[in-house]
């Protein structure tokens, strides 16, 4: 029995060299998106990133942030 031309042929998305087939939704699942891009993160690496981000954020006092904003002609953030 031949396939009706009105029924579309489903094809899996092709990923170029170095990219992998993800198991989740690449639009909502970060690890699936990264896997599709060929990046495999570890929990330890994500924890290192968290610590790094917290350190930078902790140094950014309102005074220092407003000093940078003033340098660029931006008004100070509301208190």
């Amino acid at each position, binding site marked *: 029995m031949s396939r009706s031309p009105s029924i579309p042929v489903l094809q899996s998305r092709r*990923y*170029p060299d*170095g*990219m992998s087939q993800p198991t989740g939704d*690449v*639009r*909502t699942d*970060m*690890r699936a*998106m*990264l896997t*599709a*891009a*060929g*990046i*495999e*993160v*570890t929990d330890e*690496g*994500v924890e*290192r*990133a*968290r610590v*790094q*981000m917290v350190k*930078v*954020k902790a*140094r*950014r*006092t309102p005074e*220092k*942030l407003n*000093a*940078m*904003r003033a*340098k*660029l*002609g*931006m008004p100070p*953030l509301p208190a």
Partner: protein
Amino acid sequence: MNGIRPVTLVLDTSAILEFTRQSLHVGEVLTQVDDEGAAAGLPLACLVEAAQAAVDGDRLDLLVGHAATVVLADDPGSWRMLSATYTLVGSFDSAAAALNALDLDASVLTRRPERYANVDNGTLLIALPN
């Protein structure tokens, strides 16, 4: 695009390019941003610049299409601030990254920290290793 998540991180052109080169560090930071329910901002100028140099445009599509990223367009009314920032950082895309980050109280992820030396007072940048 996501209008609800707070933007806590801005990727500049160099960070976006590192993502297309499968940078583990960029992946880890993006995962952390997503885990905390936040979003990573992608300034339009940085995306355009990165697209010129990116070997793999499909990875840019993956990045832009994820719910934890948001493309940041510059407000036309901020042109003077952009111009002032350009003077300090030397390029339009870096100016857009810095200005968006300061507007959103976010950090800039970059592999080119030296570009922001005239703006950063040690509280703006997350530098990627070379």
